[in-house]
């Protein structure tokens, strides 16, 4: 036990002062010190695009070298990852309903954020693992894409249920402060045709093409899959084909990640002020929840590893736990904007970016590394040949 704690303390200190996190702290201090510096939004978008493509590109290259049998195992892991994040979304909703005073609509939306994952946390974790020379499965970038979707579905499902049970147009449910029955949208108004009484169109049908397009083909997923596909097809043609582009997509990755974390530090700090009205239980959820979800993820991954009789790399556990622990800030906000306009625009992002992202990249990742190692050591998986 003492050895474990000593190792955790070493990893924790080691991680805490890596350039990656120093950039994050630097960004975090900008709003605190009131430094008149704005990170250009287009540069932030560009860095996100670059990181998603890079992570996909590198994953695609690695995938091309995988034996056929590993694809089936990866497929199974993706199904499990999808189901795990779906369950996490539902559990998050139950926790939020039970322990916090959030409105039901906000609890449902926040649970969607937590049932999804975070590309920013994932790329940071990849950076930490690469620096520590810890290997991970080649298909993990695909897991990032797959595990982003359940949260969107959880939020949409829960909100549609709330709407069917009398939610008013401001998102208040019967019994909640400010509930106004007269503003409950009339479902019958959704079926008129071509006159002023008609409230038809996309607004009335909850699941529609545009929304499905946003869930399954949002820019983040598209860029990630695009990177995976190009890296995969490129590498299938030989190492010489992808080698000229590797300096951009692989070598520059860590440096770009530092710039990205500079911006994320600024955003995370700015978001924290939105938590003023959220209450302590909600803040505790955003900090303790990721630990619970990550541990669940590690045990799920280990269960699958035992089932297969195939030991996983430590990095695979850590990345999977991060996918379970992290909350979305790209896909679900876009879905919220389209389909859940009644929910608070600030609380979910305050929790996901202000608390959970900051916690995961600083303290969470070393903890998950340690939990993964402990699980691997205490319940070793023997390879079945």
């Amino acid at each position, binding site marked *: 036990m003492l050895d474990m704690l000593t190792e955790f303390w070493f990893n924790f200190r080691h991680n805490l002062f890596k350039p990656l996190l120093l950039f994050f702290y630097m960004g975090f201090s900008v709003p605190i010190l009131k430094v008149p510096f704005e990170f250009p939004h287009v540069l932030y978008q560009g860095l*996100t695009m670059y990181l998603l493509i890079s992570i996909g590109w590198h994953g695609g290259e690695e995938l091309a070298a995988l034996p056929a049998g590993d694809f089936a195992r990866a497929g199974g892991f993706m199904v499990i990852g999808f189901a795990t994040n779906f369950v996490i979304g539902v559990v998050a909703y139950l926790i939020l309903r039970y322990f916090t005073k959030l409105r039901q609509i906000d609890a449902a939306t926040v649970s969607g954020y937590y049932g999804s994952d975070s590309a920013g946390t994932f790329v940071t974790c990849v950076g930490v693992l690469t620096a520590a020379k810890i290997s991970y499965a080649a298909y993990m970038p695909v897991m990032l894409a797959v595990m982003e979707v359940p949260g969107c579905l959880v939020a949409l499902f829960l909100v549609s249920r709330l709407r069917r049970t009398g939610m008013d*147009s401001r*998102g208040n449910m019967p019994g909640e402060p400010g509930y106004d029955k007269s503003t409950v*949208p009339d479902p019958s108004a*959704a079926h008129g045709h071509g006159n002023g009484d008609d*409230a038809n169109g996309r607004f009335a049908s909850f699941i529609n093409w545009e929304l499905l397009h946003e869930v399954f083909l949002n820019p*983040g997923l598209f860029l990630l899959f695009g990177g995976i596909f190009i890296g995969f097809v490129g590498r299938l043609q030989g190492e010489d084909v992808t080698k000229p582009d590797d300096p951009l997509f692989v070598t520059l990755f860590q440096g770009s990640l530092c710039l990205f974390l500079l911006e994320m530090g600024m955003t995370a700090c700015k978001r924290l002020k939105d938590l003023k009205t959220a209450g302590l239980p909600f803040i505790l959820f955003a900090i303790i929840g990721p630990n619970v979800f990550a541990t669940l993820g590690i045990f799920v991954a280990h269960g699958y590893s035992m089932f297969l009789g195939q030991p996983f790399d430590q990095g695979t556990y850590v990345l999977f736990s991060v996918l379970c622990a992290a909350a979305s800030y790209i896909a679900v906000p876009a879905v919220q*904007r389209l389909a859940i*306009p009644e929910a*608070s625009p600030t609380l979910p992002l305050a929790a996901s970016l202000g608390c959970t992202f900051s916690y995961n990249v600083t303290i969470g990742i070393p903890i998950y590394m340690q939990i993964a190692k402990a699980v691997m050591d205490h319940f070793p998986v023997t390879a079945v040949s």
Partner: protein
Amino acid sequence: MAKFVEATRVVVIAESVLLKELLAKFVELGIKGYNGLYCFGKGEHGLVEDLFSNPDRACVRLEMITSRDIAEKIMDYVHRGAVQRYPITAYVDTIEVDAKDTFY
């Protein structure tokens, strides 16, 4: 000398993700034309920040000159049914336009 007649101006300010849907509906309700400007702002509802959208184009302000009858239909549309869940500001005023212009 110009002769003026009364017309109704409708201004609808909404999230830009709604632009396509709103315009299609307004045309269906009978408007002949519109002017639009991208803008930003905040109200009671607030806007969700979405990484891949352009913050300078968060909202759109549509201005339409039309008849009282069509204006009523537009106001009714944006304040009823599922549309009212979205952050939308809409108002009308009576203006004077040149009698030769055909806004409706």
